[in-house]
């Protein structure tokens, strides 16, 4: 028995490995072969047809752009909404922690599709949101609608994947030893001023600008500066105030760095599914907000154009992989990806 000890981990891993081989490796090999095939449905033939990749890259630039922009914005919004939420639950949740966490996950007890459809109602023309914002308060023009706009798609994706951001962040925040914070305070860590005003202002302005540009409410042209600048100003003001008054030096120097693994995991977990999502764009968007997932779905199910669909799937996978590698490098969380910080 002792001689075969080396077998034990392999035996334990066998079910998982078998599962991966059958349902991940094998289908991917098949897809790879399909992406290099040509012909019509029923008799595709493997032919090293690299044209599938070049045409997939060149024919759908708008959809690739939409995917990256919407996925990126949704990740950003999830972070902006999710970090305070996770922090609040972890540090101020008290005995309600479990209840609050349950509330974050509770929507997941209903089906994904039902949640998207309920957003159709919430942000619909006769929905409660516009009834308040447009009809009662009059903040937006009378003909303003949300359904069909990039805002609807990004809002939908943000909502759908928010728990994927909150849970890893909560885990990494929760395990932070509170004595570190006390130690920081003992070492004269106080309010984050004036650095917080500046940093928060810059981050807020950048986020405001990114949202306006990404959601198509402004462009970089001079004509849309009247829309862009106020948004950046408002974002900057909010960011400055939040960081100046709510954020302390101990948070910036202790809590934030220690929560980086959770932040990394959360953003990866949000970014990957949201960049490949197509349900929100399909049900909440318009012909101009279609993402690359919609193209893949259309190629597979309506056009019977499997090679292009397979090529697009691989390009999407490659793009996500590259984005994550870059992100991991920038954030310096090698321990997550296997390496060790020196």
């Amino acid at each position, binding site marked *: 028995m002792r001689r075969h000890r080396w077998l034990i981990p392999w035996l334990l891993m066998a079910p998982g490995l078998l599962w991966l081989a059958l349902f991940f490796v094998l289908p991917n090999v098949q897809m790879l072969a399909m992406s290099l095939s040509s012909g019509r449905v029923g008799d595709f033939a493997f032919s090293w047809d690299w044209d599938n990749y070049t045409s997939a890259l060149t024919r759908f630039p708008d959809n690739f752009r939409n995917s990256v922009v919407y996925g990126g914005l949704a990740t950003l919004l999830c972070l902006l909404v999710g970090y305070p939420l996770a922090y609040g639950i972890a540090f101020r949740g008290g005995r309600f922690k479990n209840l609050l966490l349950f509330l974050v996950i509770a929507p997941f007890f209903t089906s994904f599709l039902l949640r998207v459809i309920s957003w*159709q109602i919430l942000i*619909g023309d006769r929905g409660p949101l516009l009834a308040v914002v447009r009809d009662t308060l009059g903040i937006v023009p009378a003909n303003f609608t949300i359904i069909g706009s990039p805002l609807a798609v990004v809002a939908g994706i943000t909502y759908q994947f928010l728990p994927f951001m909150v849970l890893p962040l909560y885990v990494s925040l929760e395990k932070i030893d509170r004595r570190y914070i006390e130690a920081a305070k003992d070492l004269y860590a106080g309010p984050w001023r004036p650095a917080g005003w500046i940093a928060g202002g810059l981050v807020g302005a950048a986020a405001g600008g990114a949202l306006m540009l990404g959601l198509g409410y402004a462009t970089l042209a001079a004509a849309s500066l009247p829309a862009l600048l106020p948004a950046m100003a408002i974002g900057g003001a909010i960011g400055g105030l939040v960081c100046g008054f709510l954020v302390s030096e101990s948070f910036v120097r202790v809590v934030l760095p220690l929560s980086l693994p959770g932040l990394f995991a959360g953003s990866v977990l949000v970014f990957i599914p949201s960049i490949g999502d197509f349900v929100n764009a399909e049900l909440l968007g318009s012909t101009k907000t279609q993402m690359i997932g*919609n193209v893949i779905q259309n190629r597979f199910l309506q056009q019977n154009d499997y090679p292009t669909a397979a090529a697009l799937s691989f390009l999407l996978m490659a793009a996500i992989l590259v984005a994550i590698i870059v992100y991991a490098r920038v954030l310096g969380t090698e321990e997550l990806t296997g390496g060790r910080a020196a």
Partner: protein
Amino acid sequence: MNDNDQHELQAGISRRRFVQGSAVAGIGAFLAACTTGTTSSPPASAPGQTGSPDPSPSASATPESTEVVGPLNFANWDAYIDLTTDPGADGEEGTDDDEYVLPSPTLNEFQQQYGIEVNYSNAEIDDNETFMATIRPQFQAGVDTGWDLIVLTDWMAAKVVQAGWAEQINPAMIPDALANVRDELKGMPWDPNLEYHVPWQSGATGIGYNVVSTQRDLASIGDLFDEAFAGRVTLLSETRDTFPLVHLLLQARGETSENAPEEMDAEDAERVHAFLGPYVESGHIRGFTGNSYLRDFSGGDTWAAVVWSGDLASAGTDDDRFVFPTEGSMIWTDNALIPKGAQHKAAAEAMMNFVYDVRRAARIAAFIYYISPVKGVAEAISEFDEEAAENELLFQPPDVIAKQHPQPNWDEATEAQVNELYADLAGV
């Protein structure tokens, strides 16, 4: 009241009845899927209780036999046959809380008459392509699909017939169907003499609008492009509905060929694409949808759209209206076919004939609110359901029928071209 007002069909559909019927039928399908094995004890065992059809060949049935041998394995769409009425909580039949379940009166009668079992699989077919994907491999391999009777929309039925995947029907077995089928349903180019199919039910494609949002009545396809509705218009993702309808509009304006919609070719489709392009680019047309336009109507985000005839009447509000456009409308039919190699062909033929009895056809039509393919249903239905007898969804006026066109039956190359044009418009 102008001429178009009479085509508004907002009233008359018992929506609770239809919606509840499909919900209950869905549960029936679920239960059916959960039960395995076939109880082969004819005649009176209930249908819809068995899951996948019995693939084993019946001992005494040969494809050319005229002896009706069961069981009949019948795949159909959701709530596409009359269901049994069970008195609801108040214990009285014919009130609002009645429940609808399988088996159906029609299927029961069939079983009693022929002494065979019917494995009726409700909601087995949800989509032509998806269902075909489950039986195409068997067709290609030349083996029995396990089904004796399937129901497919015209264009897919045409593909199946053209591929030689449908059994030729013995005309001696379906005298009622051949005698009672409405004349306009004959002469389909892919099977003009009903040698391989009989129509099951039909529906129309036209214009739906919410009169409160549009603040006026719509009458034509051209009304969809009224500037006042910018951003509130959707078209159907079914290319065989959307492209021919816009083709009709362009014809009315003299901007395209004289080809009938059912004959429209790739060039005609290019012109439709060129016409729609600017409206998509400007955002006037927000998107291309399937049944989800129902939610967009209820949310106020869609004011006018290309829709299927029954939906708004059965699931919309009183302000959601359907019109048959002045330019003409599309008519499509779901057709019953016997898949090649079916083990109980005579039973399938018997069923095809059975539902062409006028009285039974009227009962089915009064339940499902689609257009019956059977002559004389109007008279038969008025004997027991006045409301249904006057509904223009079931019985379209002659001037509407005169301007109705079947969906085009494109060859593979044209279909691929149209799909590409559609994808370009839909932004995918």
